[in-house]
């Protein structure tokens, strides 16, 4: 039986484990223009730098904020959309197809679209604002609010993905469960709390974890929409790793940033996983 796993294991080792190990190795070396782009061991200097690197921790905070806010919004919205699309109504098929459009668009294209929407003063948003007599909103140049614009764009794009997972989950719930509970006179609300939510929990967990990992590694959206600005207020960890490699030509430190953010993501997943499991136990007893 184990033998059948070998092809998959080899594939995984080639595309996942090997590059990962290479980065761990690289993070223990200086590899920049100063070394002629040749790796030279540097006694953990990259890691000492990472710990005290303000920009890394600022980006980590920003990435976490982006992840938590956008994933929570996405899963909540996705739940509402999935419930709606699960009901029987005229035009449901068309609605299901339409919902998927944002997700099917390439991120680069939609990020460019949002950047144009928020453009000051020519974008549609500010054009509308000026028609209403409102002063132009500098959404993409104000460090305090630009990150919200990136969250909005991300929610718009990836909610359909979470909705799709939750919709699949809803369809696995047998309808006779609802009928039985309704016979006992339970309200719509009770049905949702006692049947839908508990049975949907594994799917919610799945959507959460998928989205968590994706959102934490956000790159293309911010690169195209804001370039990490203004004043690196929307810079994500992935973008910082990219900048270290492609702009600063410091591949050793770039690898360190990458492994560092991988560890943070792992921690984040573990925390949310244990949280979900505890939730499962608690409601399981009810």
């Amino acid at each position, binding site marked *: 039986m184990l033998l059948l796993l070998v092809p998959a294991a080899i594939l995984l080792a080639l595309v996942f484990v090997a590059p990962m190990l290479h980065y761990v190795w690289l993070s223990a070396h200086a590899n920049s223009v*100063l*070394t002629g782009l040749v790796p030279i061991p540097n006694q953990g200097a990259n890691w000492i*730098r990472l710990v005290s690197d303000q*920009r890394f921790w600022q980006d980590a905070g920003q990435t976490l904020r982006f992840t938590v806010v956008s994933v929570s919004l996405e899963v909540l919205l996705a739940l509402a959309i999935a419930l709606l699309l699960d009901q029987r109504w005229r035009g449901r098929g068309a609605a299901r197809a339409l919902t998927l459009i944002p997700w099917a668009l390439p991120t680069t294209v939609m990020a460019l679209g949002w950047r144009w929407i928020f453009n000051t003063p020519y974008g549609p948003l500010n054009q509308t604002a000026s028609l209403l007599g409102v002063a132009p909103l500098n959404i993409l140049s104000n460090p305090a609010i630009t990150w919200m614009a990136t969250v909005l764009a991300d929610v718009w794009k990836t909610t359909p993905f979470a909705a799709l997972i939750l919709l699949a989950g809803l369809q696995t719930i047998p309808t006779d469960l609802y009928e039985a509970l309704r016979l006992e006179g339970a309200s719509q609300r009770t049905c949702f709390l006692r049947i839908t939510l508990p049975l949907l929990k594994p799917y919610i967990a799945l959507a959460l974890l998928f989205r968590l990992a994706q959102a934490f590694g956000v790159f293309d959206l911010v690169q195209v929409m804001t*370039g990490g600005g203004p004043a690196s207020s929307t810079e994500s960890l992935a973008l910082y790793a990219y900048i270290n490699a492609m*702009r600063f030509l*410091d591949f050793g430190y770039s690898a360190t940033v990458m492994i560092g953010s991988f560890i943070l993501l792992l921690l984040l997943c573990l925390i949310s996983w244990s949280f979900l499991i505890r939730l499962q136990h608690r409601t399981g007893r009810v």
Partner: protein
Amino acid sequence: MNPLKRVVALRPRLLAALLALLILPIGLVSAPFRQIERINILMPAPFADATRPLVEQFNRLHKGNIHLDVIRGPFETEAISDLAISSLLLGDTPFDALLMDVTWLPKYAAAGWLQSLDPWFDASDVETLATGAREGNTYEGTLYRWPFVASMGLLYWRTDLMDQPPETPEQLEAISVKLQADQKVPWGYVWQGRQYEGLSCVFLEIIDGFGGYWMDPKNAAFGLDKRNGVEAATWLRHLISSGISPQAVTNYAEPEALQSFKVGDSALMRNWPYAWAELQKPDSDVKGKVGITTMVAKEGSSSTATLGSWGLALLETSSHQDATAEAIRFLTSEQAQKQLFLSHGYTPVLVSLFHDQELIKVNPTLPKLAEALEHTKARPETPLYAQLSDVLQRELSGVLTGEVSAEQGMKNATKTSTVIMRSAGDRR
């Protein structure tokens, strides 16, 4: 009538078309044998637009031999560098030369991407350059860049509010305080205090003016946490806390400072040469009331202007190096510099042009710019400049907003800078 004649008489157009069809392929086939060298130079969009007439002149001059194309890159300078680096890392760059900012050179040179310009430009060429324009073109003694436009930090002052511009930090304070007390201006001095590259440029001028240094070019040691460095940072913080500069200066880049000065809200401003033309426009409230000078410095220290020039660098991978060097020479020639100055106000780099009466008539500040070019200083010439500048900006921004003391901020910046150097493989 014979049939051929009939065709010629009745169908002249058809015949012409047939002939064209015959000739066209011959032309296409023979074109490559004429060996036209096609060269590409990447420039930020505004520079590409400004040089268009020059490119046309060059191509007319070298018709049949060289064809120059200036690639119109993105607007933002970072985006230009990203574009160039991506193509250089992948190893098949379509560009023969780049227009590069003074701070990029060490990185590109250390990565081995640049071709030395020594075979094409010699000492006698260098002598034609203004003193300040000679800086920032070499890396470890080799010439890699030929200057195209000069730029340096300047102190703008209001000729109607003071007889003499300040020369020392103390004078700057005294003049500002008096003018503010007399309610002539809301603010004394505006500059660039936002956390970005402009803040590093401001600080370089002040730390040098206080007799200190950011990075010693001889041994690459940092001087930020030395006494003069801390004093310089303290002074900038003092400008804000004493109300000589507005609190908002901590979020000012060049346009904000210019705006404040242009409407007459400030007596003094730190900015680049481009601001002068802006201040002479009809919508300026200070038109004809502006003078320029060099940055203030403590008595005994010399005034410093941060060098901010653009220059052309030849890529090592170019297969048309002679033709590209020819184009670089043309684009930076005296005639080209004159043309760019008249059409776009680009500060020339050739010493001869600073005394050209025709140009001085257009911009009377030219002799002052020449003087400022005697005081220019390049930002630390290391391949890690971008990271070091990022660290300094962060710490300085903290000092200016009062989050951290000047002493602590400069100590942090020095420590972090050393850590970065070590992690990138610097062995000292």
